């Protein structure tokens, strides 16, 4: 069993986002980068499969220098090797999918695991695009995965129930929270990661299918208002505001 896990770095949810001067990208100052939380589920699933039945796990990311840190962490967690495909992070899912497909093509991966979307970007596009480009079966937003002989059974949450998808391997599976509980690396894992290969490949400059024209922060929340007077007066004022201003009653 050979598994590819695709990982992406995303800004930590606690980061205070600032828009860069160009109005189309994030100001990288003060941004703390973390592994996309959904990708952590993909990584964890790969490690569990490896522990249960044996597998070679390759962690792959498309990005720049800082991506190395995330790949080192993947090696510390238990990936056997890591590959950094150097390319600009343009926010274009098709470009990422093409890079991943070009790498995975002909390497004999039985399973390609990705988070179902990148936190923040929320496109949810790379997984399905990758499956299409490679002509593989896919199941997305998966919360339970079982592997059989050359086949898989995946569950995904559907409105009011569970959808079960069966298909043959190789396949692309995109993972949702709840699939598993991602682990932390151990000390031995961290120290052993130094000895594992982290390969670097030059990405091919492909024409972007989409480009981001502008990003903007949500408008600042207006300041709260304090009602004055005794309880009766405040209640009356509140009632009036709910009726006339908020128009909720």
């Amino acid at each position, binding site marked *: 069993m050979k598994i590819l896990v695709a990982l992406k770095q995303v800004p930590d949810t606690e980061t205070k986002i600032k828009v860069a001067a160009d109005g189309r990208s994030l100001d990288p100052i003060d941004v703390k980068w973390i592994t996309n939380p959904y990708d952590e589920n993909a990584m964890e699933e790969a490690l569990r499969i490896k522990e249960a039945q044996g597998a070679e796990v390759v962690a792959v990311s498309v990005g720049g220098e800082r991506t190395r*840190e995330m790949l*080192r*962490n993947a090696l*510390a967690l238990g990936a056997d090797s890591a590959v950094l495909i150097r390319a600009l992070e343009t926010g274009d899912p098709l470009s990422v999918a093409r890079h991943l497909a070009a790498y995975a093509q002909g390497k004999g991966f039985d399973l390609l695991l990705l988070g179902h979307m990148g936190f923040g970007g929320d496109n949810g596009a790379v997984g399905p695009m990758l499956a299409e480009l490679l002509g593989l079966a896919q199941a997305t937003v998966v919360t339970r995965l079982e592997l059989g002989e050359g086949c898989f059974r995946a569950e995904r949450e559907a409105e009011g129930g569970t959808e079960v998808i069966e298909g043959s391997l190789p396949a692309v599976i995109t993972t949702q929270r709840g699939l598993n509980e991602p682990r*932390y*690396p*151990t*000390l*031995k894992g*961290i*120290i052993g*990661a*130094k000895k594992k290969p982290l390969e670097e490949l030059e990405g091919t400059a492909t024409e972007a299918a989409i480009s981001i024209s502008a990003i903007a922060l949500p408008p600042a929340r207006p300041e709260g208002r304090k009602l004055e007077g005794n309880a009766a007066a405040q209640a009356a004022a509140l009632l009036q505001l709910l009726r006339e201003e908020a128009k909720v009653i």
Partner: protein
Amino acid sequence: MQFELSEENKMIQKLARQVAETYIAPSVQERDEEERFDRALFDKVASYGFQGIHYQDQYGGSGGDYLSYIIATEEIARVDVSLCIAIGGGGLGGFPIHSYGTEEQKQKYLRPLVEGTALGGFALTEPGAGSDASAQQTTAVLEGDQWVINGSKCFISNYADIYLVIAVTDRSKGLKGLSCFIVEKDTPGFTMGKKEHKMGLRSAVTTEIILQDVRVPKANLLGKEGEAFKYCMQTLDVGRIGCAAQALGIAQAALEHSIKYAKERCQFGKPIAANQGVSFMLADMATKVEAARLLTYQAAWLKQNGRPYGKQAAMAKKFTTDIAMEVTTDAVQIFGGYGYSREYPVEKLMRDAKVHQIFEGTNQIQRIVIAGNLLK
């Protein structure tokens, strides 16, 4: 000069912080209140391998550097120094076995300490032998192929599984008549005495130990007969860096809580941090913490590079534990009345900080060590 942590140091720092915040933090207050040591929690934290970072693979360690161990200690102490004592117990018991033990002793006793399947204890202090280790009353007499140990020890950390016990084997030789023995807790005649009710470190166990005709095989003598005092001094030298790291973690926590609180707490219509009096306190606290960190990391760096580190370890221990006391006291002041309440985290930090000026050699003893190095 290089002031950058290695990639590995940083990964270990991050892991230690994650583990501390995920597993240790939720029950800190409760365990402190109940004076309860949670062995299952220790097992969980130990499963990551923090206690054995700097030991080689052949003894179950991770083969990392000593600075990584110190950084992990700091991170765990930042959340709960009581648990850190148990993690560090492997170091205090492990160091002498690693340094002076036979290969057989290392496989039998060091490995479980390093792997975290056993807890280590270091039994030196006695009611009448605190700073003056030479006043030992515990004795060990060789009878056939067994050592028979009698005496009592006090203020011994952890409900440990493996203890190093210091005892007099030849009283006529004074400090050179002390020897060190490896004693397993289940050995007949070995009992735990009263549990200390302490000001701080309340969820770390500290007990009296009573040894009554405790028989251990001849093979449990560690190193050479009569050399235990030297081993103790070297063990305490190393332990001082760990002690400094613990105090550093406490001080760092106090600083972080203080900054957060000073920005949130409003009096006279503005956050108290807007008062220069408060902001200057924060500035002083942060400066002390930073200086202490540099001293502590420097001592760790000297040790891991095989340089003499006794003086720097004593300096790091004295300075860091003193500033931890100052910074935690200031943190309580910044929190005001709430700082004095057990519902807020800073009074615990102040209680936990205090003992660091006392154990692992009092800060008065540290000054003797430092002065001794200067004047030799």
